[in-house]
Structures are given as structure tokens and as C-alpha cells.
């Protein structure tokens, strides 16, 4: 970039950039001096001993120095414009493709078990992704549509999982009877929690839901006689194909249909089961959005005071969003229990809630396709970087911050109104106050 090409821009100010870089290096030195520069380890006597790591410390400081120096030098006056990197032709083409993304993904999801029948690892990963897609869509009703920040969504997932496990173990009920029961119980808990606290403001609600999630987890951990405590519940009944168990031999699924027995049948069945459950979640959400209740949710998200002025019962509206979101969490939970065959409170920690929330936010709150893509990207990424297990949560945290800063509207940043006059137009994110529909 020469100065002549950009007459309006200031010349490169190396001195100022150097000053910022030195400052950044000093801050980095302060931040990392003790935590990176020295490491505490348990010595042979049990007392802590220090190990020096000044090389790493130097590297961190150097990275801060060079990074800030280059940023100040190149990006200060938008010398290199990274925001407008995508040419308009591409965005126009993308806009035309968007309507076909959903159906294409659906077809792909339907043929995955056929294509990868012999790849057990990929099938398991797909089931996991679909579970999170379903959880994301369920939470999307609460966060994306109604604008209520729920940090304890995993509690309803846990209620669903434990409902199924306990009902199946104590009363010998089958999966298909327990599934609706688990959903109803989770919705019941949603109402129980929501009724008193939904009058609260957004942030308070977030903390109360977080506390609720922790309470559920602590009770599950400590109520040994009922839930099995930290050891959890094992030997949970596997699902059957409408009464036909996936076992080898007489009366099994394979024998009845004259197929050769393979354990993959069950995995494929589980895959289609979660796909169907997720699609039900999606269809219900899309249909609800067109009903008065769905419109009320979105109106509530955009402006609660205006809603009350128009005579919408905000408490009931919030409560239905909460209960329906919780119900789908419960469905997903009982699927999780039947798939794993083993559950323990370990699976329902706050990190799970944060992950589902991150999926919803990354996908673009309220966008169904965005949430599905985000779930695939997130879990696929986790799998891909399995070797760097230590670092992936760190990257995950930074990604949450980064998305909020650079793309607070998520991957799908446009909005499709559910009501329109003549033609359906995409609304850009800048014109939407809160989430998107």
C-alpha cells in the first residue's frame, strides 16, 4: 500500500505503533510473568516447587509486541480493510443459495447412514451433533425467539435423562412411553422454575437459571438413594424398533426382517430417531412462530414494555416459551439416556449449558439453519482438534468473545420476517434490535 494510492490516509506512524506495542508488551509481561513464567508442581515432599519457564514468557510477550505493532501499523486507519473482504458478487450469490441450504442439509442428513454405514465413528459423531442441534433448537425458542437468557438449560436435559432412566429402571416402562413423560416432566420443571422468576429482568433471570441448573446437578449428585449419586445410573434400557429389540437371534430386529445381524442397525435407528426428534422440534418451532404465541415471543424479545402496553400477558408468554423449550430439552435428555445406557451428573455440568448457548448464539439467535450449522461446526471442530484437548476449551472461550465482538448476530445475520405485506424480504441485522426471527 503506497501513500499515493490512499491520499486521504495518514502516513505510517511507526513511532505511535511502537509506543502501543511497547505498552502491550509491558501489559503482557505483567499478565504472564507469574502464571506463565513460573509453574508450580508438587515436589517429592508434597510441598510445591517452582519451575522456571522464562522462554515461554518471552514468547508470549514477543507475540503481544509484534501483534499490536502490526495491528497498529496496518489496521489503524483501515489500511487493509478486512471487514469488506468478501466481494459483493459472492454475497449476492450466497443470498440466492440460502433458500436451498436447508433442504440440501436435510437430504444430506437423511442419507448419512446410507453413505457411512460402515463408519461407526462418523455415525456416532453425527448422532452427537444431531443431539446438540436438537438442544440448540430447543434453547432457541427460549433465547432466540423469546429473548430470555437461560444459563441452566442443561437442567431440563438432566430432568429428561433421569426421568427416562428412573422410570425405565423402577417401573420397567419402555422408551416410547417414557419419552412424552420425560418431556412433560421437564416442561413441568420449567413452569415450576419459571413461574416465580420470570418477572425478573434479563440478567437476573440468567443467574437464577444458572443457580437452578446447579441445584439440579447438586441434588442429582447428593441424593444417593434415588439417583445413584456420582456413580449415576447404568444399564438403562435400550430402545427397541417398535417392540423388536436390536439383538442377535430369534425375535430380534435383524431376524424379523431377514437381515444379517450387525450392531450398526441400532446405531442407524438411533440416528433416525434423533433426526426425527430434531425435525419435530424444528417444525413445531417454525409453526409456533406463525401463531399468536410465537409473534408474542418475538415482540417480547424486541420490547417488553411495548408488549405490556399492548395487553400481552408477559408472564404467560414467557412461561410458555420456557416450558416448550424445557420440554424439548427433556426429549433430548431421554434420547441421551437411552443412547448412552449410562448417565451421571458429570454429563450435566454448566459447561454443557454454555456449549448449547454458544451454539445458539454462534448460529444467530432465532435462525434454525444457523443453529444447525453452528452445532455441526462446533462439535466437528471439537472432534477435529481432539489431540489438542487441553486447548480446545480455551479456543472455545475466545471464540465466544470473538463472535460477540465481530459478528454479534451470529452466522446467519439476516432476518426473515414471519409476517409480510407483499413479498418476503430479508432484513439486515442492523435493523433488528435484539435477536432475529
Amino acid at each position, binding site marked *: 500500500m503506497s501513500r499515493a494510492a490512499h491520499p486521504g490516509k495518514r502516513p505510517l506512524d511507526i513511532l505511535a505503533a511502537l509506543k502501543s506495542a511497547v505498552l502491550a508488551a509491558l*501489559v503482557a509481561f*505483567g*499478565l504472564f*510473568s*507469574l*502464571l506463565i513464567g*513460573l*509453574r*508450580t*508442581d*508438587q515436589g517429592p515432599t*508434597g*510441598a*510445591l516447587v*517452582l519451575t522456571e519457564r522464562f522462554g515461554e514468557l518471552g514468547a508470549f510477550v514477543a507475540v503481544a509486541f509484534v501483534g499490536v505493532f502490526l495491528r497498529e501499523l496496518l489496521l489503524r486507519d483501515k489500511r487493509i480493510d478486512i471487514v469488506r473482504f468478501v466481494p459483493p458478487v459472492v454475497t449476492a450469490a450466497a443470498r440466492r443459495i440460502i433458500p436451498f441450504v436447508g433442504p440440501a442439509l436435510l437430504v444430506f442428513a437423511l442419507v448419512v447412514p446410507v453413505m457411512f454405514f460402515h463408519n461407526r465413528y462418523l455415525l456416532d459423531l453425527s448422532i452427537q451433533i444431531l443431539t446438540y442441534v436438537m438442544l440448540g433448537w430447543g434453547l432457541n425458542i427460549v*433465547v432466540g425467539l423469546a*429473548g430470555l*437468557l437461560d*444459563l441452566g438449560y442443561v437442567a431440563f436435559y438432566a430432568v429428561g435423562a433421569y426421568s427416562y432412566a428412573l422410570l425405565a429402571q423402577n417401573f420397567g416402562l419402555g422408551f416410547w412411553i417414557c419419552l412424552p413423560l420425560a418431556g412433560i416432566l421437564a416442561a413441568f420443571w420449567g413452569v415450576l422454575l419459571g413461574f*416465580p*422468576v420470570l*418477572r*425478573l*429482568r*434479563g*440478567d*437476573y433471570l*440468567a*443467574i*437464577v437459571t444458572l*443457580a*437452578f441448573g*446447579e*441445584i439440579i446437578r*447438586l*441434588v442429582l*449428585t*447428593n441424593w444417593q438413594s434415588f439417583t445413584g449419586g456420582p456413580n449415576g445410573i447404568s444399564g438403562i434400557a435400550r430402545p427397541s424398533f417398535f417392540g423388536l429389540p436390536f439383538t442377535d437371534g430369534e425375535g430380534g430386529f435383524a431376524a424379523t426382517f431377514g437381515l444379517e445381524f450387525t450392531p450398526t442397525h441400532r446405531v442407524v435407528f438411533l440416528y433416525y430417531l434423533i433426526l426425527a426428534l430434531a425435525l419435530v422440534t424444528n417444525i413445531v418451532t417454525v409453526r409456533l412462530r406463525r401463531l399468536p404465541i410465537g409473534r408474542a415471543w418475538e415482540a417480547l424479545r424486541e420490547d417488553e*414494555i411495548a408488549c405490556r402496553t399492548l395487553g400481552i400477558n408477559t408472564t404467560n408468554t414467557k412461561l410458555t416459551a420456557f416450558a416448550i423449550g424445557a420440554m424439548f430439552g427433556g426429549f433430548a435428555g431421554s434420547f441421551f439416556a437411552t443412547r448412552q445406557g449410562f448417565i451421571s451428573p458429570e454429563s450435566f455440568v454448566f*459447561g454443557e449449558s*454454555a456449549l448449547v*448457548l*454458544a451454539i445458539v*448464539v454462534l448460529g444467530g439467535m432465532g435462525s434454525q439453519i444457523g443453529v444447525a450449522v453452528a452445532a455441526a461446526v462446533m462439535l466437528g471442530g471439537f472432534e477435529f482438534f481432539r489431540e489438542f484437548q*487441553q*486447548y480446545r*476449551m*480455551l479456543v*472455545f*472461550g*475466545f*471464540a*465466544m*468473545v470473538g463472535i*460477540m*465482538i465481530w459478528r*454479534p448476530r451470529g452466522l446467519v445475520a439476516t432476518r426473515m420476517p414471519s409476517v409480510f405485506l407483499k413479498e418476503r424480504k430479508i432484513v439486515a441485522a442492523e435493523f433488528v*434490535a*435484539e*435477536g432475529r426471527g
Partner: protein
Amino acid sequence: MEIFVQQLINGITLGSIYGLIAIGYTMVYGIIGMINFAHGDVFMVGAFLALIAFLALVAIGVTAVPLALFLVLLIAMALTSLYGWTVERLAYRPLRHSFRLAPLISAIGMSIVLQNYVQIAQGARVKPLPPLIQGGYTLIDNDVFIVRLSNVQILVVVTTLALMAVFSWVIARTRLGRDMRACEQDLKMASLVGVDVDRTISLTFVIGAALAAVAGIMTLLYYGVIDFYIGFVAGVKAFTAAVLGGIGSLPGAMLGGLLIGLIETFWSAYFSSEYKDVAAFSILIIVLIFLPTGILGRPEIEKV
């Protein structure tokens, strides 16, 4: 009776620690209306910085405990403040005009970052420190039960009281305190009358982090063991304390901290220690139902 007195002492000590963390939440919430979810982890970072600083001081030959502790206090407060400042600068300031939930989600991200950063840098195992301050006073000794007031407990309570006094003075009497109160009432108006809003917010985070660092040192001295996960539970409880006392109110944060500390210790002593966290979180929910503004909070006026 003896158990009651003993638990009262323990509860006040624990409550002081919660109160110090709660102040960080309440100040930030008062000024920019966001829940600084990463504050609990800043407290954890403070505890780690104190531990490493102490070991480093011992390694270079500073072995006199009072001097070492004083230096550790200074180092940990300074460096933790730097963390508080950096977190605000990197993760919250760019979002000041973003949509409502953005700063909270960013804060959750920052909390995950800090937790995993410390876990990677220092390992996941618990870090024990032998008790530095020993001894104490026996208050009641009647052959059945001994009520003790340890020197660490005295140190925790006295330090907390001293910091509260200094802090109240800063808020009530100094230029910075006046700026903070102005920002709390109305950010835009404060900037119009010449308050440097960015600087005030930064300093709020710095002060909150410094107090959290003190709480971290206290935890290290009192329990003698820390790990990278202590920030989450302590953070949620301290936030509960801030809400209980009335968020935005400084005496409220301290009062809430004491109440949560007392509830927790008495619940452990008389009911079951497994459910002490359940008790604390249930109190949060119950308080918010009946007293949405907390004990000392002001009712919120909704403006359109």
C-alpha cells in the same frame, strides 16, 4: 451454644471473603448494568498469583512471613488488577453498544478462557500451601467443645473491615468516587458533564479485581488449598450475595456476603454439608421472588 458461636465465627470469616468478591459484581453492575461473569475467575487468578508470588519470594530469600505476606498482597493486587483491566478492555469495551445479551455471553466466554488458561499454565491438580499463620485464641473451653478464634480468621475480618473503610472513603470523598457515582446514575449525562466514562469504567474493574485478589489471598490462607475451579462456585455465591444485599449497593454487597457465609456455615453445621450450595442458591431464588431489589437495593424505575 458453643457450636453456635464457633459457626458464627466461621460464617463471618467466610462471609467477609464473599463480601469482598461481591463488591466487584455490585460495582460493575451498578455502573454498566452487566453481570461480570468472569469476576469469579478473576478471584481465582488472584489466588494463584498470590500463591506463585509467595513461592517466588521464598525462593529469592524473603522468608519473614509478615513481610512476605505484605509483598504478596501488593503483587497479587497489582497483577490481578491488570487482569481485570485487560478483560474489560478486550472483551467488554467493544460491546458497550451491542445488543443486550452480548456482554454477558462475552463474559461467559472470558470465564471459560481464564479457567482453562490457568489449568493449562499451572496444571489441574489442587495446590496446597502449608498454613503460614498459626495459632489463635481459645474463647470457650468446657471439656466438651472448644471454641477457637484463629489468627487467620482475625486477619481476614480485620483486613476486610480495613479495605471496606478505605473503599467507602474512596467512593464518598474522592474525585474517582464521585465519577463512579455519576456514571452509576447516568452514563451519558456523566460524559456530558466531563466525566471520563471509559477511564471510570476501567478503574471500576481494576478496583473490583484488586478486592477479588485480596479475597483470593484470604482463601489461600484460610483453606490452604486452591485449584483452577474455585472461581465458578465462589463467583456464583458472591453474585448471590450481591443480589441478596441489593445489587448496586456497596453496604448491601458486604451484608449479603455475610448472610451467605452464615447461611452456608450454619446449614453445614446443623443440616448437611452436601446441600450447603443448594441452600445458598435456593436463597438466591427465594430472595429474588420476594425482594427483587434485594435487602438494601433501590427499586428500579423502568424508562421507555
